């Protein structure tokens, strides 16, 4: 029977939640890295027991942790337990937390500044890793989306990181600016049918696509309309919150923007709004049913100044038509006095039949649906604020 493993990142550590295929009884393991902010934990599609975690702290900076046994034990790549902590020539290992922006003239056109909150130019400064995206085919290759916005890649299991500088070298960098949460690269989508193609999204710059493995990038924001920027239809500057893709149909993308839920059927070259009858089209996560590529999920939030569900009712909305027509899903979710938020990386879907849908809240609840969203129940209620949830479907 299949098993489900949920990888939950919180403000104060990581938790691993496991269940058999019935998804009724859950074991909760953690906290791992207690006291640290765990922005994201994700497993490799090529080796589900290979996990990567972004561990970060305002005091001590960025740490990358890795597990090779499904989260039973962890280590910092470069210093595995039991191995020498120095190289044969005596140099210390352990640089898995070293993220250095590429400023070499050979690779791309490195930028030195982006727009700051006050409109002045500001140097790029590494702060943390928001999102880790393991390769679809190689467990030692993993991408990292970081703040200040840039894309890094490791091809040695997280021991060392190199920037894909062509993204910052696109030329629009001086017009990128931080959103309220920082200038983060938070979404990385790998095209399963075209290994050279990737999509990323940045708050607040917008979405970008590469068709040559990350050397060159183009902004893909045509059709986005954002009234909070001087030119609402600008090439860059949009606050994209999350993008989702179904593996069977990688040219179709769904986006939760700051305001507006959007859809593209041409790999991001153009977008149209599909917010339809949502009670609010502000929100953070968006995800897609495992077996129905036109069934999508969002969690409406009241507004950008009031980060909680409208009317104090926690509702997931599902569209079975690829947008525009939405149904509210409330069974098992609190329908009064609920003022939590659901962050951009805090929703995930398993691939059982029917698929399971999971999301975590800033109030520390992780909710699960075993029936594709028809009904919900909490797995845990009192974790620290949840930053990310990733579901793994294991054999």
């Amino acid at each position, binding site marked *: 029977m299949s098993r489900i493993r949920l990888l939950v990142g919180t403000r104060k550590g990581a938790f691993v939640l496991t269940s058999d295929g019935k998804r009724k009884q859950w074991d909760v393991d953690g906290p791992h*890295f*207690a*006291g*640290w902010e765990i922005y994201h934990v994700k497993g490799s599609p090529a080796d589900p027991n290979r996990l990567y975690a972004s561990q970060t*702290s*305002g*005091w*001590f*900076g*960025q*740490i990358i942790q890795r597990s090779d046994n499904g989260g039973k034990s962890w280590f*910092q790549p*470069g*210093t595995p337990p039991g191995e020498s*902590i*120095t190289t044969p020539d005596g140099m*210390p*290992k*352990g*640089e898995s*937390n*070293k993220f*250095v922006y590429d400023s070499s003239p050979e690779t791309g056109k490195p930028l030195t500044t982006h727009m700051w909150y006050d409109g002045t130019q500001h140097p790029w400064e590494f702060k943390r890793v928001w999102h880790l995206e393991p390769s679809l085919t190689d467990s030692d290759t993993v991408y990292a989306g970081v703040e200040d916005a840039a894309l890094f890649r490791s091809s040695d299991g997280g021991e060392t990181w190199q920037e894909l500088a062509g993204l910052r070298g696109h030329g629009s960098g001086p017009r990128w600016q931080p959103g309220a949460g920082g200038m983060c690269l938070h979404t990385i989508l790998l095209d399963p049918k075209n290994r050279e193609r990737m999509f990323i999204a940045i708050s607040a710059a917008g979405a970008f696509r590469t068709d040559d493995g990350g050397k060159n990038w183009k902004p893909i924001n045509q059709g986005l309309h954002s009234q909070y920027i001087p030119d609402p239809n600008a090439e860059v500057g949009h606050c994209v919150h999350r993008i989702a893709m179904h593996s069977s149909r990688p040219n179709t993308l769904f986006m939760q923007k700051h305001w507006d839920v959007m859809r593209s059927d041409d790999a991001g070259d153009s977008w149209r709004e599909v917010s339809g009858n949502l009670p609010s089209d502000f929100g953070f996560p968006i995800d897609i049913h495992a077996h129905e590529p036109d069934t999508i999920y969002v969690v409406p939030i009241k507004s950008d100044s009031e980060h909680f569900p409208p009317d104090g009712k926690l509702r997931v909305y599902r569209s079975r038509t690829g947008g525009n027509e939405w149904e509210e899903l409330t069974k098992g979710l609190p329908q009064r006095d609920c003022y939590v938020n659901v962050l951009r990386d805090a929703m995930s879907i398993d691939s059982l039949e029917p698929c399971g849908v999971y999301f975590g809240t800033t109030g520390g609840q992780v909710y699960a649906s075993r029936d594709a969203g028809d009904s919900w129940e909490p797995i845990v209620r009192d974790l620290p604020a949840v930053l990310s949830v990733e579901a793994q479907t294991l054999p």
Partner: protein
Amino acid sequence: MIRVVLPTHLRTLARVKGEVELQLDGQATQRAVLDALEAKYPMLRGTIRDHDTERRRPFVRFFACGEDLSHDPPDSPLPEMIAKGAEPFFIIGAIAGG
């Protein structure tokens, strides 16, 4: 022998309990202590000071013998009590936030 007290989170990362003991070849300075610490516990590289510039992270402080040495030049000699191992060198996560 130099004694170093790490903050809780860095003890966890380094997988140590209690004080850390370091042997220095030359003069005891902040830089020499941090070099030796990072050589023995490479997982701490980048958590106390920048990998390349070696600038102290803003919310990390260095205390010794009741003094805050955070702003001292990194190559200044540390107090004799630290150099002799009579007193520990404290690496502190600053109190910040509510």
